[in-house]
């Protein structure tokens, strides 16, 4: 099975268990914070006077443990990192917000979640903080309009992780963060000894074993590395939904009871059943559908692309696709779909496999490729002549007088002329996580 579980990515009324799962996660969260002492503002504030470094110890232990386990599961191939919410980077608003939060922390003595643990255990100051929080969030909602452009664009880098920033393998970054955390724990204990007059010899010896275990796990993550493309591809499953056909003479109630059938297909099965190949007509309709956000990737050699391409298609080569898929995941919206095309289908199918393996959602292939598109829309354009060959060997079938790119009529057929096209719809948008769907947002 592939994690995270698709049915638990978001809450939905159709599956009440989602509320239970998220409620239990919250329960465990609040329980752990309270038992660590985070219901007590003095314990939290002591962090900033070096007398008791509990905040740092709990936080960085949690980060290190969760990180090692998460990236370990990714390296083992049981967790799909493309489906894990990674906070998008908004550097400007993030840093300013962080600085403001620090002020709230030292003045108020809590952070939002610890104030919950505090308020629910009867701490009056925790309750005041919580109420203040509602006021603060309200004020933000009312004032966001005055700086909305800055808020949404300043220093925006999308989904960006530290391994991308430092251009290091992710396992190495995991190991470095663990080493940094262990060093900070050592430093924190020294500070507690000096400022908090703590006797370190009374600390449990077990913590060295814990540090060792964390280090060994991090080294394990480095050694495992990342799963390769083929392994990722073999784990992908594609959900297709089919409407059941009503039996003859069915009553209205029987019709209502007909649930659509969901089928899980491996990517190779989906290709073989031609579920992922969309006709030129469907692509055309998609391009003119205001509700959809199609991205066309033309994976032919640049020369062929310059001769002719569909308007709006972006030329790219197969070896650039892994990098492009990171961009696509960063800018994921639920209505975004990706259509890959080549002259026929061979190269496009290879490209499709890469994108699917990189867990880009909603990727389709233009059926019959650019040749088929021209054949379908070419209303005897005098500039495009003759069929060179139609052996289906992924070569251009047409001869062009010049490299006019997308300035042919059938590069962008008129929606007036091709208003009502008939086709068998293949596109089924899979609801995957979108940019605004996760995190604290």
């Amino acid at each position, binding site marked *: 099975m592939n994690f*995270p579980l698709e049915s638990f990515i978001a809450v939905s009324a159709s599956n009440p268990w989602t509320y239970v799962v998220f409620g239990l996660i919250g329960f465990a969260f609040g329980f752990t914070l309270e038992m660590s002492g985070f219901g007590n503002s*003095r314990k939290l504030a002591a962090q900033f006077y070096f007398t008791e470094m509990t905040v740092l110890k709990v936080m960085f232990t949690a980060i290190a443990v969760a990180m090692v386990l998460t990236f370990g599961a990714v390296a083992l191939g049981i967790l799909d990192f493309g489906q894990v919410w990674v906070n998008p980077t908004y550097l400007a608003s993030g840093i300013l917000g962080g600085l403001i*939060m*620090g002020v709230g*922390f030292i003045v108020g003595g809590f952070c939002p979640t610890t104030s919950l643990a505090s308020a*629910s*255990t009867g701490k009056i100051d925790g309750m*005041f903080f919580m109420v203040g929080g509602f006021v603060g969030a309200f004020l933000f909602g009312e004032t966001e309009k005055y700086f909305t452009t800055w808020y949404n664009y300043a220093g925006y880098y999308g989904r960006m992780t530290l391994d991308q920033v430092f251009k290091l393998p992710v396992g190495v970054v995991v190991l470095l963060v663990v080493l940094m955390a262990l060093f900070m724990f050592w430093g924190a204990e020294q500070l507690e000894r000096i400022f908090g007059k703590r006797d370190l010899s009374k600390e449990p010896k077990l913590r060295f074993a814990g540090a060792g275990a964390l280090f060994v796990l991090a080294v394990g993550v480095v050694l495992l590395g990342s799963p390769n493309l083929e392994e990722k591809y073999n784990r992908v499953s594609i959900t297709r939904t089919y409407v059941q056909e009503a039996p003859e003479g069915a009553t209205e109630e029987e019709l209502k009871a007909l649930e659509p059938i969901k089928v899980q297909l491996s990517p190779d099965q989906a290709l073989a059943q031609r579920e992922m190949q969309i006709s030129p007509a469907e692509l055309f309709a998609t391009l003119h559908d205001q509700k959809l956000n199609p991205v066309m990737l033309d994976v032919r050699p640049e020369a062929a692309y310059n001769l002719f391409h569909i308007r709006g298609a972006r030329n790219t080569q197969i070896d650039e696709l892994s990098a492009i898929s990171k961009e696509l995941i960063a800018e994921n919206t639920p209505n975004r779909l990706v259509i890959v095309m080549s002259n026929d289908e061979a190269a496009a199918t290879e490209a499709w496999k890469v994108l699917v393996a990189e867990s880009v959602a909603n990727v389709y292939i233009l059926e019959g490729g650019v040749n088929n598109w021209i054949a379908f829309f070419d209303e005897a354009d005098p500039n495009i002549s003759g069929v060179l060959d139609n052996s289906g060997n992924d070569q251009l079938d047409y001869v062009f007088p010049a490299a006019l790119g997308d300035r042919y009529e059938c590069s962008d057929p008129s929606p007036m002329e091709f208003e009502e096209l008939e086709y068998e719809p293949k596109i089924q948008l899979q609801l995957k996580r979108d940019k605004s769907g996760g995190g*604290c947002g």
Partner: protein
Amino acid sequence: MTTYTRTKSKKSLSRKGLFSRPAKPYVHPYFGGAVLGIVLFLAFFLTGNGLGSSGATSRIDVAIEDAIAPAHVDKTPYLLKMAGGDKNPLDDWIVPVFFGALIGGFVSGTLHGRVKLETTKGPNISNRMRWLFSFLGGVVFLYGARLARGCTSGQALSGGATLAAGSWAIMLSIFASAYALAYFVRKMWN
């Protein structure tokens, strides 16, 4: 280990039950952190989402605004993203996490004998002043948390564990400004 809440166990007059047990010490920070890390990992592993709470504060606000002044919500794009059309602002994973955390904190406090109406503060500040600053701190913190798109849980903890670059910048900013200001408000805590 120092524990601030351990009050000299008042001899409970009559009722001996859940809420009058002697306060137990807090768990060791590394142990608490490890458990929290496992909870965070399970959240990512099962749902793909991390932990958080400030988003729920905001969503509850929007739900109230939407009930009182729906026309105003419809004119404010930021609120509209959560409550526009037939969207229910409370229909988000972070809301059950928020209420779960409230209950979880209460249950842990109950089991460990720490549920008690009191104010946690430094020795040199009055209760009323402490309440005022708590309130103001809450206002400021949540304003910053919405600006940064997440608080210590949603950004520092969850983003830190997934190596999100922006979250690490936010985490450093929080600590930097809290440390920078700590000296000036030392009377509140020491």
